[in-house]
């Protein structure tokens, strides 16, 4: 599974595809205080990104992939 859902944190791994977005959305709706760990993520489909953005989720760990991190920071760092 590209996303591992823990108690209050979702861990993204490798490439997270479009199929995961629905589940992620459902999960985040149930857990409004959840955080995400993107450290092991190398790419994620924008469908997932939209969900993360809409949920204004807190990023606990940014991706190790610096390129991805730079991109995501433009979208997920609010304020």
């Amino acid at each position, binding site marked *: 599974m590209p996303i591992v859902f823990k108690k209050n944190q979702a861990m993204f791994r490798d490439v997270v595809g479009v199929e995961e*977005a629905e589940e992620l959305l459902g999960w985040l709706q149930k857990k409004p205080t959840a955080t995400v760990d993107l450290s092991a993520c190398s*790419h994620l*489909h924008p*469908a997932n990104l939209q969900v993360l953005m809409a949920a204004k989720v807190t990023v606990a760990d940014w991706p190790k992939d610096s390129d991805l991190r730079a*991109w995501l920071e433009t*979208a997920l760092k609010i304020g």
Partner: protein
Amino acid sequence: MTPLLEQFLSEAHELLDGTDKKLMQLEKAPEDETLINELFRLVHTLKGNSGLFTFPEMTRVLHASEDLLGMVRGGQMAYSRKLTDQLLEAMDFVGLLCDEIESTEHIDASRAADSARLAEALRMLLPGSKAADAPGAGTAISTDVNKVHPAPAATPTPDLPPLFEIPEAARAEAFRQCGNGESLYWIDYTPTPQCFFQGDDPFYTARRTPGLQWGRIVPPEALPPLAELDTYRCVLRFQLLSAASREEIAEYYRYLPDQVRTIAIQPQWLVTPQGGLNEDPTGAVKASARSADALPQLAEEDAAELSAIVAAQRQILMLDDHSAWRAGQLKSVAGVLINASKVVGDSTAQKQIESALAQALTQSQGAPLLTWLDAYEKKLSSKTAGQPDVSSCCNECEPERKPDARRSASAPEESSAKAAGDDGPKFGRRAEDAFNAPKSLKVDQAKIDRLMNLIGEMIVSKNALPYLAQRAEVQFGVRELSREIKAQYAIINRITDEMQDAIMQVRMMSVSFVFQRFPRLVRDISHKLGKEVQLVLEGEETQADKNIIEALADPLMHIVRNSLDHGLEIPEVRRAQGKSATGVITMRAAQEADRVLIEIIDDGKGVDPAAVKRKAYEKGLIDEAKLEQISDREAVNLIFAAGLSTAEKVTDLSGRGVGMDVVRTAIEKINGTVQVDSTVGKGTSIRISLPLSMAVTQVMVIESDGQQFGVPMDHVVETVRIPRSAIHLIKQSQATVLRGRIVPLKALNTLLGLSAEPKANADDELAVLLVQANGEILGLLVDGFRETIGIIQKPLSGVLSGLSAYSGSALMGDGSVLMVLNIKEVV
């Protein structure tokens, strides 16, 4: 060039000629529905074919044309002169692209803009085009009209991209790149909201943009609350800064030119932040200050070469002193350096070298030149490593090495085509293009047909010789002559048979010719649809006549596209139904007696007979009574009726209700039959049966009421003689029991409206010809059977063409005409 591409081009040219002709005819008769239909099919086929290759520019224009014609065909808009003009231009553009492909095997990326402009112009003609209600792929284009056509190029600074929002570090780096003479583009990429469904990953696309310097994701003004968020509707935008050339960017985004806006960046835009952000542009300012005495701008490779040249000259100057050729050596070194500075456009350096040379010559040693070299090299190294030179970028006095930058300065948005209409470039290749000598000899189909007809006639006239021999013997009593005629006949017979065989051989082609295009087609389409599909090809070596094989190409394409689009499910659905995620499409060809059987089997969701019935009823193809009676199997076969499509919406691939109709028409034209079997949830199998060759048809000659008729052997099951006593009357119908099966009997005389009764033979037995028609076996009562012969069947023409009871006629060896029965229609 692959054979497939060659085939495509030759077909495309043919189709284009067809569309041109039809468009011209339509202008004279705009109400002609058949013309519109034919035109629509031509464009439909052309679009489908172009989809096999990566020619999005072509497909886009054709798709727009098709949409337009679809509206005209559906009566939603009237045909107009303007429409013709626009369509003709679109077709000319397609023709131009074909020519380009022919010479270079690909389409230049710069065509994308023209293509988008043409497609846009076509869509503008659609009723209500200004709103975002254009069908299919049109949505993106029409909603983003302003993006595709931003302010005219003449405006000095069109809406500048928000460059100041780029972080300082990235901007400084970009400025340096820009200063180095590299082009820099701002890309605004707005994916369509439906793009996820097309299997796109816009984020990935953005990340992989060539020459990417910086990029960010722009969220929409307000994201909906989580509960209302539609995950699969893309709301993001991307803004990028790329150092790639415009061509590279256009090439990379060639499939989405309507979603991408490219703006050339001028260096000073990077220096002067617009808007109120109070950032410190020191880096850039310092750079411009330092540039006062800097060297003119050099591309990196040039700079490296220049330093190599300078270093070589230094080595020469350091060589041991040989006073004899010292002067020559100095002059040569100076000459090289002067030339080098001329190339880089450094006129002060030239003068300095000249004076240094004069000094060196008087002193007869290299020191003055070396001193100059030291100073120059220092300048060079600071130049390549250090800050760029702003003055040379901004000033117009810059040498012509950077045409890109200068052009883009005056036209920040050059990809924006001028407003659709009269100003745009014309593609009128018909009018004034040069004649290209054909590379291969293409023989007109008609000529081959003629050859085939001639050999057919020869066979017929050869068959007249035995009659002649008989007459010589019976009527004139010259036995000797009769024998000689027969001997001659034997020879001619052998030769014509061989000749016919040879011509047939020439025309024989293996099925692989049509099959070979499918692996690619299936792969591309399945990727587009997000489906996993495995294509299995069987019996590719099966051979058939060229006409047959060629006629097969279009129907097969439609069938396979339909299977991909409507038949096979997406992997998730398949898994949920306990099928393997990968769907299988099998295309199988086999020869059976004198027919070729082709099966296309998919293991998709099958055709729902109820849905077809309902749709057919809605469209008025069947009436209420039929709706009740019709069997599921018959219902499924209704998909071949014109104008029926069960798909909910029109896609790039199918769903216009034209495909299956085309399939049936095309196959029946070559005397083939097509049948579909389908189990809901299990899959669909479409069986096409075709004659091996169209030229010679095997018929059985039968006699009835003193006349001879031909019955195609495809329909003949067997011939039997049945005693009159074995014929039973069930109500009004006759029937007999044959090997435990009840076979309905009908007298051919009655069917043809002849009053005579079937004749029985001496033992009071009736001749029964068992035929297969419409899937049933039926006995035809005839008077007698004759031989089976190969004939060249000619379609009936003139007033006779209305007689559906006959499929055609043929000339017999004795000069008489044989009428060939159309069994399906007769019974």
